């Protein structure tokens, strides 16, 4: 009977634990901050061809990201013709919606866009924990009160993935591919708990 209770408790613990770090061993972090350099240069206009899938609607266009000053970014999405779909001002943890088309002007969606882009662009993030893995350096941080896991490939020490999660479930995965110097030329952002996906391809402007 005791064995059964312990087994059940162990099973419950395993099934409730986060997939991201389930098999990993925790260690003392060897540094204080993780750095995301992909949107860090204020002299660069980061311009991407973008495909957004929000619920069952597809939006194609251009996504423009610009660092205005430390911890302050503008994120603008336009159609290919140049008509703005949204224009967000991310200043530290605060969001100022400068413009959004009526169809997307929904509180929940705006909140999601805020947390997604904040996670995508934020440069310096305090490390809470580090995990041991064969292929990656993995650091846990917190962005707008959400657990965020930063994966740096050991082979080149480049940030290749960020996962945002609750205590038990992965919510959003951002993958950085085709990295040239400090620019990620391909980026995908996929939500796991609802139908939202963003694919970005860097445009040389």
């Amino acid at each position, binding site marked *: 009977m005791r064995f059964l209770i312990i087994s059940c408790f162990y099973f419950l613990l395993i099934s409730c634990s986060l997939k991201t770090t389930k098999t990993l061993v925790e260690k003392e972090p060897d540094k204080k901050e993780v750095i995301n350099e992909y949107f860090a240069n204020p*002299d*660069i*206009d980061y*311009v991407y*061809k973008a*495909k957004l899938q929000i619920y069952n609607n*597809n939006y*194609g266009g*251009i996504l*423009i990201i*610009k660092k*205005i000053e430390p911890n302050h970014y*503008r994120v*603008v999405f*336009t159609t*290919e*013709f*140049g*008509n*703005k779909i949204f*224009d967000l001002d991310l200043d530290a943890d605060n969001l100022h919606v*400068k*413009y959004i088309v009526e*169809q997307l002007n929904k509180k929940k969606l705006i909140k999601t866009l805020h947390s997604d882009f904040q996670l995508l662009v934020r440069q310096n993030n305090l490390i809470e924990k580090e995990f041991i893995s064969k292929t990656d350096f993995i650091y846990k941080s917190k962005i707008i009160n959400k657990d965020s896991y930063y994966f740096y490939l050991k082979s080149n020490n480049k940030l290749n993935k960020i996962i945002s999660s609750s205590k038990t479930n992965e919510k959003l995965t951002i993958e950085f591919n085709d990295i040239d110097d400090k620019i990620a030329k391909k980026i995908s952002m996929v939500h796991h708990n609802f139908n939202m996906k963003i694919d970005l*391809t860097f*445009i*040389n*402007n």
Partner: protein
Amino acid sequence: MRFKVYFTGLIWLFFTFNMVSQQNVLSKQESDTLREKVIEKSKNTSTIRSDFVQYKHLDFLSNDIKSSGNLVFKAPDMIKWEYQDPFNYIVIFKDKKLHINDSGTTSKIDLSSSKTFESLNGLIIKSVTGDMFDDDKFEITYFHNEANYIVKFRPLDKALRSFINEFVLHFDMNPLDVIELKMIESSEDYTLISFLNQKFNESISNEVFNN
């Protein structure tokens, strides 16, 4: 140092004054004549082929975002915009629908579901021939500089104005081709499209407008 600041300020003032002074208001008679001629030319235009260069200006960017391609227009209301650089993207306006080919992925948008979008896209079609002269929809003002006529169309509809605060068309003085379209947002950010190598009234098959 102070001299340098004053000198830069003076140069800036000179250029600003020069730019403003370049645009002179047309008289009522001149604007009526221009309007009649553009409408007449538009009526006699059955097709247009043109290259274009587009600049997206956002006040916080270091450089405008440049893209380019070509367009084909066939009266009364079919138009194909093809972006070729720095990405491949085709949009065809036909039968009140937008047919999109985004680097091989095709889709269709029914414009009748949104009056504002339908209106906006209708205006983009009309802007190619220049015939946007509708006093019920716009407050229209007329100017000229040394080389061009400049006509500004300010939408009266608030919903449309939330997208575009003003359309500005530049016509060359002879033969009144639209050479530039500027769509200015209320934030003063804008999209500028220059039309190049225009060819009029060539034979163009309807198949060109299949996605």
